[in-house]
């Protein structure tokens, strides 16, 4: 049609809302059919990490408790509040403390932002830890998800690293002395190299400490290093690892779940229809078939529902619940801040952040064993689990194989008795150095409460492995003992250790200096 150009121009101007909307939203309206729902997921940049359909069982809150989502949601909240805090925080020893005070007292929404940042950091550590426990107890590390388990462990370490680097930034007494302890733990290989007399030639402890602090003391160099790690390096690493973690979830066939019963019904198109054969447990991309059994053609979707909107509801809900909980905590409880860091006045007791307190308790017996050896052993042990327990079966359900619950309960009891007993023993009777004051340090490195604990737990788990005739049961025993031990040690060091790391029944009994 021959419209005049001015007319065309005016018409296009008037059509602007529609044309812009159409250019941006290719669909333009909410999905009205399953096909459109699948397109909404598949064709969207942000959403296409999701599979188009998701298995019904994996949506159940009682399977996952949304812990992985909670960790991710916490990280998102942390990133946003973190960037906002960066507008005012100044990473120099002369300015840091005052900038935190300004954020608390003066900056618009500053108090709440800082509190949210602090509490969601704690929440993230808790969520990651519980998520690991969930994945373990539902056997979701088994083939083909071993690598994702390893990525998860790396994420756990990075999460702790983020929390630890952030702890120093306020530059107050809590921060300064906690990191002094942390850096001395990094220095703990000295305990071994000194005992062997080789420190002059081989000093990994000193190397680690200097790498962390950039100096021999906790000062300006440490602050800037921790800052760079906290706001850039570690978040970048975490984002990359999380992306791989999510990618692997897709490639490994979605969240682990029990196999659907053969021949049982599956929901499809609003009705239940019979299923004929063991179903493919893999979704496939149109680009490639990475690994798996076979594509399903002419089959009903296997007990799955559309991701849009079901999975998205779940994600939004978990995200908002995380935000709500964090916000409630932040409204009532201020993030702690003590006096300006003062190297001349040590905090007594000087305590590491709570998630490292269990470690600190072990460190109080032997720095090297508690600070380096046991954490490495634990990490190695955790990493090996999916490679040692290769018997399929029971994935996607809590305590999926027979006897698991019983073994877990017994291990709980055993772990509790041993941990509490060990602590009671050391509090009442001391340890080797109290009985033999000139004993060589090497003896203490080899025989100390931490190593004894690990040995007893390992022994128990081997007994269970043999008697239960199952690697999985042995793993359950060991993991449960680890959980219990970690919890008991953390609780004990938080509540019952006071000034000079002496035992007290309750913090109110701590002597006032």
């Amino acid at each position: 049609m021959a419209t005049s150009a001015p007319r065309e121009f005016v018409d296009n101007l008037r059509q602007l809302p529609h044309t812009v909307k159409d250019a941006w939203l290719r669909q333009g309206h909410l999905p009205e059919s399953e096909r459109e729902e699948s397109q909404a997921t598949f064709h969207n940049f942000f959403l296409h990490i999701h599979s188009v359909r998701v298995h019904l069982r994996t949506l159940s809150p009682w399977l996952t408790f949304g812990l992985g989502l909670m960790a991710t949601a916490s990280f998102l909240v942390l990133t946003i509040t973190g960037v906002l805090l960066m507008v005012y925080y100044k990473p120099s020893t002369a300015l840091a403390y005052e900038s935190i005070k300004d954020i608390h007292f003066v900056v618009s929404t500053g108090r709440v932002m800082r509190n949210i940042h602090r509490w969601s950091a704690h929440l993230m550590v808790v969520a990651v830890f519980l998520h690991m426990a969930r994945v373990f107890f539902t056997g979701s590390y088994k083939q083909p998800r071993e690598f994702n388990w390893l990525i998860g462990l790396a994420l756990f370490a990075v999460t702790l690293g983020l929390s630890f680097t952030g702890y120093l930034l306020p530059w107050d007494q809590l921060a300064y002395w906690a990191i002094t302890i942390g850096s001395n733990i990094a220095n703990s290989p000295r305990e071994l190299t000194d005992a062997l007399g080789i420190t002059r030639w081989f000093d990994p402890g000193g190397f680690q400490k200097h790498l962390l602090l950039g100096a021999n003391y906790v000062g300006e160099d440490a602050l800037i290093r921790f800052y760079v790690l906290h706001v850039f390096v570690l978040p970048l690493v975490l984002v990359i690892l999380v992306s791989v973690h999510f990618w692997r979830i897709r490639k490994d066939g979605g969240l682990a779940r029990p196999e659907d019963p053969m021949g049982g019904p599956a929901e499809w198109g609003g009705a239940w229809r019979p299923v004929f054969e063991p179903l493919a447990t893999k979704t496939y991309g149109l680009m490639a078939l990475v690994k798996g059994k076979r594509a399903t053609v002419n089959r009903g979707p296997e007990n799955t529902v559309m991701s849009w909107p079901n999975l998205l509801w779940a994600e939004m809900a978990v995200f908002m619940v995380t935000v709500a909980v964090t916000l409630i905590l932040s409204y009532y409880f201020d993030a702690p801040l003590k006096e300006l860091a003062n190297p001349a006045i040590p905090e007594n007791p000087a305590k590491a952040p709570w998630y490292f307190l269990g470690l600190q308790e072990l460190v109080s017996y032997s720095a090297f064993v508690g600070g380096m050896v046991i954490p490495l052993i634990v990490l190695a042990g955790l990493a090996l689990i999916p490679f040692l327990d290769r018997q399929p079966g029971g994935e996607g359900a809590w305590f999926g194989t027979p006897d698991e619950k019983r073994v877990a309960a017994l291990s709980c009891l055993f772990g509790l008795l041993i941990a509490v007993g060990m602590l009671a023993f050391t509090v009442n009777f001391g340890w080797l150095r109290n009985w033999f004051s000139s004993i060589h340090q090497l003896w203490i490195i080899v025989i100390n409460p931490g190593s004894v604990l690990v040995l007893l737990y390992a022994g128990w788990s081997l007994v269970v492995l043999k008697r239960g005739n199952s690697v999985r049961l042995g793993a359950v025993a060991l993991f449960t003992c680890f959980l219990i031990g970690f919890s008991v040690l953390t609780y004990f060091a938080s509540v019952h250790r006071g000034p000079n790391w002496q035992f007290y029944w309750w913090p109110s009994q701590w002597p006032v200096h």
Partner: protein
Amino acid sequence: MSRLEPPRVSRRSFLSLASVGSFCAAMGVALAGALRLPRPTVMPGPVRRYKIGNPEDFPIGSATHLEKENVFIYRDGEGIYAISAVCTHLGCIVAQSAQGFACPCHGSKFDAKGNVVGGPAPRALPWLEVSRAADGQLLVLADNEVPAGTHFEV
């Protein structure tokens, strides 16, 4: 054909609308808060406010150069006004001249109201806000510029 076009789904319900709506509202409120954060609630740094004495110290027709504060104080029939003594070219201190002000550094010349009449200065000498302090003294707020001609009535 039916499998390619499964029946329409309508999951819209009040619950869905309400939950999405409240989610967006919550995010909106949070965003509003977050956007307010970068705006300073109180300006950092020392404020350049100078107490310069009482109005009686500046009789009508007087022209006083306050050297420490780098400002000229004038009083005429309409009131008191303050002109900055800092040359707008490169920051030297101007001196009073027959026509107004002259800068010794690069020869900028200003008239009695501070307008540029010669030299490299790019703009007029700023007029500074004059106010009262709580104890009654006159106050020059050197950080606040006011339009030329603004008088403070006393």
